[in-house]
């Protein structure tokens, strides 16, 4: 008896203490609460702008070779010098940011999409679907993402869409695992049980009640893995199985720089700095997003 009378009161009390937060409140917290996050946002926006306006910003054609100006050290004409083919390193860096950053955007979106489908299927329906999906997730999760990416890229070879596939396959298991665990938890909630009892159709339950309520950890993973995918694309390009030359990417600028390190070391330094700064900035943002959206897992 006490249960039935207590519950509404308790709910009303809780609502009175904590008013419903506005839709944009979490976003504002992420953006403004910490000075380190604010700096990180500015950095990421600057890099995105550089990538977006690359053809207008880059002083030279990133592919144009010049026999008279090879291995130049930094100067007013060439801020980061030139490489062994006489190409302007600054222009290659600016154009390379397109190839490097785009994967940080695409791969987490695709992986989140497929991972959520797999995870919700496994978590909601259970049974043999859950057993098969969980088994494959466990297997793939045993591999570090970078190793998995290298192994898949080894089989597929490098091209734009192959890299997208590689990163998506490498990241999907992580999303699937989180989506499955969250679905299992949400499925126990009274509102889902009520919906099932009321005879609401299954697709409606999944899209109206399950998916919106498991989005927080998924969004956290997306921001964190956007940093990972930029790093992994750089590694693949460095290994020669990512963005293919002569197209520039920060990873293969370092690869070219390493074979030419006796002449000039600026391409190595520049490429590495860019990767490090962007990955650092996105991880700082990712940490903030996690602290706001997913406080339970915050360190």
């Amino acid at each position, binding site marked *: 008896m006490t249960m039935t009378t207590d519950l509404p009161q308790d709910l009303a009390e809780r609502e009175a203490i904590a008013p419903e937060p506005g839709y944009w409140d979490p976003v504002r917290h992420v953006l403004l609460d910490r000075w380190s996050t604010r700096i990180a946002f500015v950095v990421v926006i600057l890099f995105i702008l550089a990538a977006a306006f690359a053809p207008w910003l880059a002083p030279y054609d990133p592919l144009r070779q010049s026999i008279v100006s090879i291995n130049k050290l930094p100067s007013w004409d060439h801020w980061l010098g030139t490489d062994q083919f006489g190409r302007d390193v600054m222009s290659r860096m600016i154009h390379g940011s397109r190839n490097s950053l785009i994967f940080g955007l695409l791969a987490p979106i695709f992986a989140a999409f497929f991972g959520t489908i797999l995870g919700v299927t496994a978590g909601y329906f259970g049974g043999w679907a859950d057993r098969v999906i969980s088994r494959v997730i466990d297997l793939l999760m045993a591999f570090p993402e970078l190793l998995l990416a*290298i192994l898949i890229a080894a089989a597929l070879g490098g091209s734009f869409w192959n890299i997208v596939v590689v990163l998506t396959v490498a990241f999907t298991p992580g999303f699937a695992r989180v989506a499955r665990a969250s679905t299992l938890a949400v499925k126990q909630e009274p509102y889902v049980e009520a919906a099932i009892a009321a005879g609401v159709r299954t697709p409606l339950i999944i899209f109206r009640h399950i998916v919106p309520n498991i989005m927080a950890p998924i969004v956290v993973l997306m921001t964190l893995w956007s940093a990972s995918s930029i*790093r992994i694309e750089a590694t693949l390009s460095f290994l*020669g199985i990512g963005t293919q030359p002569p197209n520039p990417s920060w990873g293969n600028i370092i690869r070219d*720089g390493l074979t030419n390190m006796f002449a000039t070391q600026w391409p190595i330094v520049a490429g*590495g700095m860019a990767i490090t700064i962007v990955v650092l900035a996105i991880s700082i943002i990712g940490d903030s997003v996690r602290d706001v959206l997913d406080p339970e897992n915050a360190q």
Partner: protein
Amino acid sequence: MAKYLFLRLLDAIPTVFLVLTLVFVAMRILPGDPALAVLGANADGGQLEAFREKMGLNDPLWLQYLNFLWDAVRLDFGNSLMNDQPISRMIANNLPHTIYLTLLSVLLGLSMGIPLGVIAARNRNRPPDSALRIYSLMGYAIPDFYLAAILLVVFSLNLGWFPINGEGEGFWDGLHHLILPALTLALLKSAFLGRLTRTSLLEVLGRDYIRTARAKGAQEGRVVFHHGLRNAMLPLSTGIGISILATLSGSVAVELVFNRPGIGRLLIDAITERDYPVIQAGVMMFAFFVILVNLAMDVVYLIVDPRIRIKS
């Protein structure tokens, strides 16, 4: 305990089987016609046919699959397309170098990471703690190949303290060649392990038995190391396993930067040469490594956490 181990080993068999199947599917079905991929678009019909016959590509798919499994079980990976050497011998020649690199880097990483974590945990929210936080953030953000290239440029090229590439001859020369590559991976590991040590030690130090130890007058060093660190070992041993696995992918890049032989190098060279049998063997070697490390981690749990022993 023996029973638990046996069951765990038995559990690894379907995993190995699944990995082999995935490799087979990826290598036979995804990249299109392997004969065309290997010989190039200029090969004529007769050459393509001869190649298909030699590699058994004309057999029905199920027979190819069974042959593939049987070869994998016998560790017979066939011959390299490039130099016609048996791939098992190429692996045997390269494997020790990757193992040395892994062992030294894990050893260095632990001996730097754990003390860093302990110092940070003992100075929570003070400068040493913030320093470790920045160090571990940097360790995550800096790609391994970039750190390797920087160390190479600074210490080998400009200062001349270490050789630029190769693996060296004999023990001391070999070690001299190994230090920078191992240090590269160790620095990144220590950033990760230091952070993990700090987190798990702080959690343990808040427990009741630590207060009891302090209350009965135990020395601070004994409280931290005997009561604290020992109990922090369980999450830490997971971390060590993860960081050994990270070495596998890290070794690929590091072996390339320092121009060292190794399994990662073998795989990357094979990819550039489109040497499909070697790629396949390299991929399988890495997959087996991963399964093996995961198995070893389970054994370590048994040793570190007596509760699992009793339960099983």
